[in-house]
């Protein structure tokens, strides 16, 4: 009798998780809970978590007559590329993740993509904009955000319209993402007839930009494009302001996209940032929540305003959900086919992936906007200023006009 009871208990123990497994989709990812990428990664993570909670609250992802609840398995990659490959291998082999979300940043995503391809796992990339991993013939990697080459395209068009003879200084962090963005921007600037008078990268660990700002002043530039990630971009903005570099135009990557950038006060005023998404832009979604619903729900959950990292995190989940529901299956090959056929507009914008084998999975439809820090009711706010049809406020040029 005792043996029977033991057998029954053991059967229950083994059967219950197996049953739960059937109706659960496990998505694995790493986040940078510690290290220099923490701020940007946190936004992405929150967006993904918000999507998961919303989907589960609505009963899960519906496919093939079943409703799949979403379960996340996450690890802290400490913002270190070396940790990413270990952890994604663990996510696949030990945690049996069926799908993967990318880590934050191009470098970490490139490292994780090696593992996702090796094990044939679909990875939705909302954290790395560099296109290099997409030119390697990968089949399971899909980018929902605009690629790095197009980051500053809008800024250059807007600048060329305001000043066709602008003298541009390009100073950027010596990391793969920033170098890719600025290399493309240099070509776009020349095509637009702008004069690139300085083109230099700095070590990501640079703490004092004083001599660099002097060099920018010496170059006679009147427009600045550059930066890299959070800390360096903010320091550059402050030192250009403190040293009165008198730029008529400043576009900085990433850092001004965070609300804490407003802490720089006068140094933030007039600074523009290419953004994957801003709450003022309203697309008519074919799938998922509207911009207002997303922004309101996110703020209620996290007591913080959604930025573009959060929006792209949510979008990565929504696009995977859309593909699974279109495929009516969670089998990888069927979901890959559905992702290849995806052409959908969410609150984040239109998403469509390249199906060309030479650039498979690269984002080809999503568009960036350009946001500018402006004064409104004596407060600093980010306004969408480009493209003009999506603008929430007119672009201020030169910067001195906004002081």
């Amino acid at each position: 009798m005792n043996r029977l009871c033991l057998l029954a208990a053991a059967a229950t123990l083994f059967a219950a998780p197996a049953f739960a497994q059937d109706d659960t989709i496990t998505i694995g990812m790493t986040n940078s809970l510690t290290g220099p990428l923490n701020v940007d990664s946190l936004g992405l993570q929150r967006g993904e978590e918000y999507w998961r909670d919303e989907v589960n609250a609505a009963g899960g992802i519906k496919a093939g007559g079943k409703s799949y609840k979403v379960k996340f398995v996450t690890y802290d990659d400490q913002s270190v590329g070396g940790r990413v490959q270990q952890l994604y291998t663990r996510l696949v082999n030990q945690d049996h993740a069926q799908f993967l979300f990318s880590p934050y940043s191009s470098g970490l995503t490139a490292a994780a993509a090696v593992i996702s391809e090796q094990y044939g796992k679909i990875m939705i990339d909302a954290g790395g904009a560099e296109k290099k991993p997409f030119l390697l013939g990968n089949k399971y990697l899909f980018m929902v955000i605009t690629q790095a080459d197009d980051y500053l395209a809008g800024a250059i068009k807007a600048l060329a319209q305001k000043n066709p003879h602008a003298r541009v200084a390009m100073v950027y962090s010596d990391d793969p993402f920033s170098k890719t963005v600025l290399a493309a921007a240099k070509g776009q600037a020349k095509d637009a007839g702008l004069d690139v008078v300085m083109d230099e990268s700095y070590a990501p660990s640079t703490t004092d930009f004083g001599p660099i700002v002097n060099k920018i002043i010496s170059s006679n530039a009147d427009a600045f494009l550059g930066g890299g990630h959070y800390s360096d971009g903010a320091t550059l903005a402050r030192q250009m302001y403190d040293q009165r570099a008198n730029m008529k135009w400043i576009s900085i990557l990433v850092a001004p996209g965070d609300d804490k950038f407003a802490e720089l006060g006068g140094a933030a005023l007039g600074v523009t940032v290419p953004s994957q998404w801003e709450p003022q832009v309203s697309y008519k979604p074919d799938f998922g929540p509207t911009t207002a619903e997303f922004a309101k729900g996110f703020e209620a959950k996290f007591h913080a305003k959604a930025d573009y990292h959060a929006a792209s995190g949510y979008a990565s989940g929504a696009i995977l959900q859309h593909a699974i529901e279109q495929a009516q299956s969670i089998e990888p090959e069927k979901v890959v086919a559905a992702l290849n056929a995806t052409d959908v507009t969410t609150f984040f914008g239109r998403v469509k992936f390249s199906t060309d084998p030479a650039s498979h999975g690269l984002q080809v439809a999503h568009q960036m906007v350009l946001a500018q820090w402006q004064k409104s009711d004596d407060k600093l706010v980010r306004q969408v200023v480009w493209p003009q049809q999506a603008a929430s406020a007119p672009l201020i040029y030169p910067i001195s006009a906004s002081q």
Partner: protein
Amino acid sequence: MLGIIASLIDGVLVGLVYGLAAMGLTLIWGVMDVINLTHGTMIVGGMFALYLLATALGMPPYLTLPPVLIGGFVVGVALYWVAVHRMIGRPPLMSLLSTFAVNLMLIGIGTGLWGTALFNVSVSLPGLSIGRYTFPGAHILAAALAALIAGLLYLFLHKTRLGKALRAVANNREAAELVGIPTTKLLAIAVGCGVALAGVSGMLIGTLFPFTVLSGDGYQLKSFVVTVLGGFGNPVGALMGGVALGLLEGAVTPFVPVSWTLVIEFALFVLVLIAFPNGIFARRGAL
């Protein structure tokens, strides 16, 4: 030409602050042969003390200097008893590991509390302009305060009874004990002074640049370079090393791509180590 002169002046201004930051590291090394790997985090501690006192309590930024100095001293004495005291007289690797462990804990706590979000303390002081180049008032004042504090440290070490006792302990600990100097107490005071200097330099840096919990790494690295340039265990040399590093950064940047600045800095670091293993102005054991 004006641009080069401006970069050199900028280099001297920032170099004085680098020098002050390195003085804390070299003081502790000079007195007890301990490399304090919490140094960068203590600099960040000064930055956050500035932020909290100036933003939360509304204190004028420069009035936060005395509380940061006192707070840094107290934290330093606590650090001595927690991580250094038991390592005295043991191989240098032991104190290196113990301070490294404390550093990891402090960074973990800091990241847990504030993440790696950016903090900024805006200081508005009239600057000085030469042609198109401006030297912000905050930079000039930070450099002046760094030089003043370095001068006061020199006077403390050479003109006060406590300072002389510290130098005696640095020179020969056993002999100092034989003449009745309470060496343990003085070692704790030395760590207190070293951390207080790190905190004050952090407070001054916080008035110049935005910062995060992780900003200390860069300044700790610079402090090592400055210490090597200035001579291990020589606080006055550290100030000169800081100015030398600042001048180097200022002199190199106008002529080479900025990404080469670090390469040149660390090439010089290695060359100095080869030519002068104890640093250029080494006066071991004499402070």
